[in-house]
């Protein structure tokens, strides 16, 4: 951590030397990785905790605690932030804005992230939490001369802070109950109090995580940030919400089953609505942002189910559910940062991320494109990649829960199971659309056809992440070992004692089998084709000869049937300029699906309270007589109230 702080200071000082500052920042991340990863991995493998305590004169004892749960989040943070920082060097140098803030901020936010994970007392946690919010805000408003960037930044800052108020209340109540600000274990609270605290935690952490319906900041903020910051935000920062929730479940202890059920419900809503909204997006990073909501939903399904299972006294089910949630945290961090990084590379090369203006980028940017496709397959949960493994655990936990829960829980688990299936299908549709329209086919605009492959310093982190996605998908037995300690901490039993053990091993083996069989088929195919040279031709267009790239099926059309099916949820708005005559010059159809929460809840609420406050302000007196009158009236009123 010291290395990070030093690097932050150094890169802030070096702000004027752009390249150097960024390099120092990346170096800082690397140093932190080298220093902090070994103890974290040790804790994961060996269990146990490491603690560093000191005493604060006004707040009492404070501590940094590295326990398995913290370590589980620390390790990916170190790796991914390093990748993002390396990527950022070349990415930011291509722009013309000052980079000092970015360089220092990247280190500082990683520092804040690590502190959030390691904090052993409420104040340290909350301080790091808020600092993380500030740094994230400063990083994502890199291009703050653009109004939309400022708006997104503001939305992020204000919403997450409002949610943090709940956390302040929660930790304050918890510390009052425990008599200390230090984190304890499982406060023995009455069910009512536990539910209240849990609710506060869900609101506070849910907003940061991007859980529906508190997610509105997320699709606004991610697209406007520099890509490596989007990756950091989506990969790591929103995960702190999950970490917080899991930590809170540990701190609060036993909560009634309804709490977990509500969390599960939020998870299902986030997953389904997130993926549907993603389907309707036209901008690549915005689409990815909505997928973050979807994946957070999947994680929350796991977390909520785990909590339900603990309440129902089914630790084995809880262990599988928590394992799924935890694993998905890391997996999502991996493939989502991979996707954002590759999207950033495309945006930088083509100067647009409007999906319908791209196309065929894979041939110009083979490594970036391949990374993206791997990430896309991973995020859809397709075997043999890593996304599957964690979703598999969540599915399994849901099925297991079906068998053992009381009937209401059973019904909810079944519902979640079906919803998750639907989400899987929709995610696949959405990423088929995204990768197809951006990377495949022919370029739709000159910007897309002029694309060049990104420099090595940007491609390197992407390829590394892509490779990790593949490897993590095939390393089930190893995952079983590293997951064991944090899962035990949360669920109380070892993962190895659950059916998940066989599942993890078998999926890894079959994943390898899949790759082997595909390889074999590919070899056979090559052998067959070897005899006959392959020919090249234009795409068969059913007899039509003059095919142009603009005739390709667009991403919007691609998603259109599904949007039509779900129009009751998405409420698309259509703007159409119909052809009035043959050969009309302008014919246009536009369809947008603004976020219903934003459209029907946030905007009217803001507008309404704005009007209300303006009315109140209009009542403001301006004369000194009125000022004194106010005092006079207040005096009489108070005397009346207290003495009368």
């Amino acid at each position, binding site marked *: 951590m010291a290395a990070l702080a030093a690097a932050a200071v150094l890169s802030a000082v070096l702000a004027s030397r752009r390249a150097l500052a960024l390099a120092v920042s990346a170096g800082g991340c690397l140093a932190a990785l080298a220093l902090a990863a070994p103890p974290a991995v040790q804790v994961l493998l060996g269990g146990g905790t490491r603690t560093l305590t000191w005493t604060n004169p006004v707040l009492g004892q404070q501590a940094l605690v590295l326990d398995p749960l913290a370590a589980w989040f620390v390790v990916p943070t170190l790796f991914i932030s390093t990748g993002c920082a390396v990527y950022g060097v070349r990415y930011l140098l291509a722009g013309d804005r000052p980079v000092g803030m970015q360089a220092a901020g990247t280190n500082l936010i990683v520092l804040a992230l690590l502190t959030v994970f390691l904090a052993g007392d409420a104040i340290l946690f909350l301080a790091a939490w808020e600092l993380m919010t500030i740094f994230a805000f400063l990083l994502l408003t890199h291009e703050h001369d653009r109004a939309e960037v400022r708006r997104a930044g503001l939305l992020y800052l204000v919403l997450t802070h409002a949610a943090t108020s709940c956390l302040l209340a929660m930790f304050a109540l918890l510390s009052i109950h425990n008599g200390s600000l230090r984190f304890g274990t499982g406060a023995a609270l009455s069910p009512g109090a536990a539910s209240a605290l849990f609710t506060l935690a869900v609101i506070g952490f849910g907003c940061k995580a991007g859980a529906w319906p508190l997610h509105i900041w997320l699709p606004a903020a991610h697209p406007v940030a520099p890509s490596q910051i989007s990756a950091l935000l989506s990969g790591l920062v929103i995960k702190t919400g999950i970490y917080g929730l899991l930590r809170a479940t540990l701190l609060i202890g036993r909560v009634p089953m309804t709490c977990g059920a509500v969390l599960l419900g939020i998870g299902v809503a986030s997953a389904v609505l997130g993926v549907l909204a993603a389907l309707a997006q036209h901008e690549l990073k915005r689409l990815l942002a909505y997928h973050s909501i979807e994946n957070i939903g999947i994680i929350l399904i796991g977390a909520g189910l785990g909590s339900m299972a603990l309440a129902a006294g089914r630790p084995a089910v809880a262990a599988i559910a928590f394992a799924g949630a935890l694993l998905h945290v890391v997996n999502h961090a991996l493939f989502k940062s991979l996707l954002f990084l590759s999207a950033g590379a495309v945006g930088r090369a083509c100067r647009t991320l409007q999906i319908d203006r791209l196309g065929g980028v894979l041939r110009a940017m083979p490594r970036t494109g391949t990374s993206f496709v791997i990430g896309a397959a991973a995020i859809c949960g397709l075997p043999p990649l890593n996304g599957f493994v964690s979703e598999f655990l969540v599915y399994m936990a849901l099925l297991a829960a079906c068998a053992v829960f009381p009937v209401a829980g059973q019904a909810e688990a079944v519902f979640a199971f079906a919803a998750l299936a639907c989400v899987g299908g929709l995610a696949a549709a959405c990423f088929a659309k995204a990768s197809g329209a951006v990377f495949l086919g022919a370029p739709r605009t000159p910007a897309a056809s002029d694309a060049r492959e990104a420099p090595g310093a940007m491609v390197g982190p992407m390829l590394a992440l892509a490779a990790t996605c593949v490897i993590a998908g095939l390393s089930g037995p190893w995952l079983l070992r590293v997951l064991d300690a944090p899962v035990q901490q949360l669920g109380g039993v070892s993962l190895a004692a659950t059916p998940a053990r066989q599942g993890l091993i078998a999926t890894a083996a079959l994943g390898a089998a899949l790759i082997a069989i595909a390889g074999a088929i590919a070899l056979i195919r090559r052998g067959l084709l070897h005899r006959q040279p392959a020919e090249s031709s234009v795409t068969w267009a059913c007899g039509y000869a003059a095919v142009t790239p603009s005739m390709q099926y667009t991403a919007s059309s691609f998603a259109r049937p599904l949007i039509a099916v779900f129009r009751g949820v998405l409420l698309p708005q259509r703007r159409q300029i119909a052809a009035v005559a043959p050969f009309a010059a302008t014919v246009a159809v536009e369809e947008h699906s603004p976020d219903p929460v934003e459209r029907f809840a946030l905007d009217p609420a803001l507008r309404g309270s704005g009007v209300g406050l303006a009315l109140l302000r209009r009542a403001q007196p*301006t*004369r*000194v*007589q*009125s000022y*004194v009158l106010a005092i006079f009236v207040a005096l009489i009123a108070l005397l009346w109230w207290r003495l009368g």
Partner: protein
Amino acid sequence: MTNVALDIALVLALVLGVASLGTSRLGAAIRYFSMQAACVAMVPLLIETRSGELSVHAWILFVATMVLKVSGVPYFLNRSLREASVRTEIEPLIGFGTTLAIGAGLVALSFGLARQLPLPQKPASDLLIPIAFSLLMIGLLLIVSRTKAVTQVVGYLIMENGIFLFGLILIDVFPYLIEIGVLLDLFVAVFVMGIVIFHINRAFDHIDSHQLDSLKD
């Protein structure tokens, strides 16, 4: 005998206060205040004579009040008035009749309020507290209802007289120095207000605080 004198002084102070509510001429308001201050200044002496000997403290209080409030303050106010062209309250925020009616109500309220607050020790006169409250209320009412800056200062001063009366319940609680400090502060306050009125006069060509309402959100 002294009791009667004390009561007369107190009632006179109240009447003068009510009179200042009813007048439209600024000069008269200042005069009423000065007379009221004189009445109030007598009160400590009258209280002390009731118990026999007159303390130095009471004398100092009397002299200081006479010098600062009865002569000093009106002098300054009249001086700042000299610059002004308009010397009558033309358009009060609340009409004179209404003000008087409200004033009467407030006086009644004050008598009621005084009943709620029984003194730990029996005061020199049972009119002391109600009238002190009344002066307080009248002063505030004057500030609230009038538009001329000078009238507002007068209102503030009448309020101050009321507080002074309260202070007389326990003469020796304020050491001399602090008592003098209080009076001096009051005097300086009026001095500063006078300067500001002078500036207002010059800047806005009137001393009407009515139009001082450009500061808002």
